């Protein structure tokens, strides 16, 4: 259970003159029990107990912050002690007016929502089930409606297993409380998208099995596999990437080892496994950084291949441009902070409903803001604004970078065009892919810029009536 900050009523408790907890609200009692106390026994939360002891010693009421740990959470409390008079003389009333539980800070520091956005951007989703595989929470990439349809249903009722994976393998793993690895599944209803399903069993505080947490990775190759174009009819001969090179072979083959390299290098770099010489830690961070660049390139090439298929299509989700630009900026907040760049966003209260695929629009915005951060001077401001443009709604991303000469305005949207830049981690595919994605959603992506005056990229999408 997580309690966030504001308490309508304080959490109360009472100690007798011997320091025994003789009355307590459920939250306080839970903490007391988790700290090894028992009902009616001495207050077992050391920080609270010390405060009460000092209060008694001074014969004064105190009001101080207290921090305690409970399972995976840190609890920040603001505690007031009140010495009781008259018939309860000797007792101390505890009143906790703030009670804020936060997960023990992780090294990633990413909030859950932000992590979800990363997952969506990367085509990943998650499902949390109870012990009988009933879906308790889920987030599926490319299917925003899934939440309403699937919550409460059994996992086995909403996905089919695709050969070579078998439902029996899943059942067997679950009966033995074992992790589930890389099973090919497809949604039974709705968009019938293909996913690769993996899962870990969850064990609760009492050591009992309490369900599974599954992760789903969109299997893009399979997702479009039903309608793949006729062989040889899709990609012109002069295209760099052949039809199947990335989608079915290189992409998956590269992502998995790259993912492991990045994860392990980050683990080493952040010294999670123990102390390490400073320069070795820096090498590991360099490896992780290079791995991420390679992963970006693999993703770009996969996208490039996908959007060049004639069968490529995007969903027309009901999305809001303002919401998406806040999410995209949230994903890049750390990168921007590293360069002391402020991202100026439109007011959250503004609504700009459009038709477009959630993940793809997020991808375009991340690309545009990421480019703006990459090519802006440190300490500058990137301004995002939404504008109504006839039947279209648009978002502009304006930076204070060096700007782009007018002759280059079209060139930057070409494949592998870097305008002579190198070594900054870009692949030269981002804008090409973004424009193709915008066009596929019946929208457009354009640029206005002049040398020395910054650049403004404008993404327009069809407006949606609310």
């Amino acid at each position, binding site marked *: 259970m997580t309690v966030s900050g504001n308490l309508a009523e304080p959490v109360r408790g009472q100690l007798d003159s011997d320091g025994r907890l003789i009355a307590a609200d459920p939250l306080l009692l839970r903490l007391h029990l988790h700290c090894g106390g028992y009902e009616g026994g001495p207050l077992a939360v050391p920080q609270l107990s010390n405060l009460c002891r000092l209060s008694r010693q*001074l014969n004064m009421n105190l009001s101080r912050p207290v921090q305690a740990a409970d399972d995976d959470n840190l609890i920040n409390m603001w505690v007031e002690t009140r010495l009781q008079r008259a018939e309860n003389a000797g007792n101390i009333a505890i009143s906790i007016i*703030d009670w804020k539980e936060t997960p023990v800070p992780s090294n990633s520091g990413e909030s859950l929502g932000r992590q979800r956005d990363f997952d969506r951007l990367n085509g990943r989703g998650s499902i949390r089930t109870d012990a009988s595989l009933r879906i308790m929470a889920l987030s599926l990439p490319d299917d925003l409606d899934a939440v309403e349809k699937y919550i409460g249903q059994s996992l086995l009722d909403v996905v089919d297993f695709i050969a070579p994976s078998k439902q029996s393998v899943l059942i067997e793993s679950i009966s033995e409380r074992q992790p589930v690895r890389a099973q090919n599944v497809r949604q039974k209803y709705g968009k019938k998208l293909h996913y690769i399903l993996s899962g870990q069993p969850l064990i609760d505080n009492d050591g009992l099995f309490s369900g599974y947490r599954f992760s789903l990775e969109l299997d893009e190759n399979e997702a479009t596999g039903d309608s793949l174009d006729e062989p040889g009819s899709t990609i012109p001969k002069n295209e760099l990437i052949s039809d199947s090179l990335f989608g079915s072979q290189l992409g998956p083959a590269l992502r998995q080892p790259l993912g492991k390299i990045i994860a392990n290098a980050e683990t080493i770099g952040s010294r999670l496994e123990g102390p390490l010489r400073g320069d070795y830690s820096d090498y590991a961070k360099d490896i992780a950084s290079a791995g991420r660049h390679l992963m970006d390139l693999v993703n770009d090439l996969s996208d490039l291949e996908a959007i060049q298929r004639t069968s490529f299509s995007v969903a027309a989700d009901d999305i809001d441009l303002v919401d998406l630009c806040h999410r995209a900026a949230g994903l890049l907040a750390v990168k921007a902070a590293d360069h002391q760049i402020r991202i100026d966003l439109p007011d959250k209260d503004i609504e700009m409903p459009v038709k477009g695929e959630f993940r793809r629009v997020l991808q375009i915005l991340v690309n545009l803001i990421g480019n703006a951060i990459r090519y802006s001077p440190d300490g500058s401001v990137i301004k995002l604004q939404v504008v109504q443009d006839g039947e279209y709604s648009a978002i502009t991303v304006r930076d204070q970078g060096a700007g782009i000469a007018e002759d280059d305005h079209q060139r930057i949207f070409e494949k592998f065009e870097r305008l002579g830049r190198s070594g900054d981690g870009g692949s030269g595919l981002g804008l090409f892919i973004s424009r193709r994605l915008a066009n596929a959603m019946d929208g457009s992506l354009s640029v206005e810029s002049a040398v020395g005056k910054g650049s403004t990229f404008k993404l327009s999408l069809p407006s949606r009536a609310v």
Partner: protein
Amino acid sequence: MDQNSGVGLVQQAAAISASSAYISDDLAAALFPKSDVILSDRMLSNGRQYLRAIVQDIEAEICLIAAKDFGLTHDTIIEIGNSSRGHSYGLLQKAGLLESKALLDHVFVSVQRVELGARLAQKISQADLETVWTRHLDNEDSAVADAAMALLVAQSRDNAGPGSIHSHIDNLPADIIFALTWPIVAALQKLSGYDGPELSKAAERLLGSHDEGAATQNRARRLAQLVDPLDQGSENLHPLHDGLDLFLARLAGRSDLSVDQLIRFTAEPNMIRLVLTMRAVNLTTEQALSIFGILDGSGQLLTPASYKDIDGDKASDLVTKWSGNALYQDAQRLLNSYDSGVSD
């Protein structure tokens, strides 16, 4: 010279004779300071003024409670209660009852806090300062908004007080007011010649009604506790963004040090320990330089190179050490100095 003034001079001479035995002590303290902190005349003057003010506030409060709540009608007590100058201060000072380490530490921190406030006021306009104070009032989390309002009220109370020293009893930590109240009761009894139970009862009532949560520093700590987890980015941790009290409380929360320790760091030469603390909590170079520039009063410069050269892990280890038990650290320091004395 009449008879009476002759008696006065004789008494004066006797008093001077008694006190002159301590000249060497005063000179030794001035010549051989044990800390690296330089106490300016202004700090000493402010410290004396602050201590006088809190002693006077407490004695007046005790006398008023004794008269109003317990019906004490003793003339001297009523006069002290209504007086605008301190009476027991001189007595307490001569008896050495104001020399406790905890009390003097508190006085030093309070005076330095005022000094820091004055330095900040030179870098930010009053209008901007007010914007900073009201930043969290409209927060959608009502706990944050309430805590922000409580801090704003406390800061307004501090500013409305006479002079530049925040001497209001509400700002005193529980242990300090407790440690001062009982000697003041004894001094009042001696001054008035009245030793009935009313003064003690009044002191108990004063202590019983003291609300630690009303202190500005505590209100800032409460707001910091609510705000900081939501605002973990380091870019906003700055006195110009938070105001002095909230900034110190947030930095204290992140470093596990106390606000008093941080304030002491700002009085030390080159604020070295504050710089290490900023490094330990990973403040960016630009931010650390800016904060240093605002809080420093000695005209020293922190260069980007010297800040970047600090090993973050070592800084973190040191800060962890400083955040440990104060008694343990004091004992360690004393034992080390004893050791070095022996070896000499």
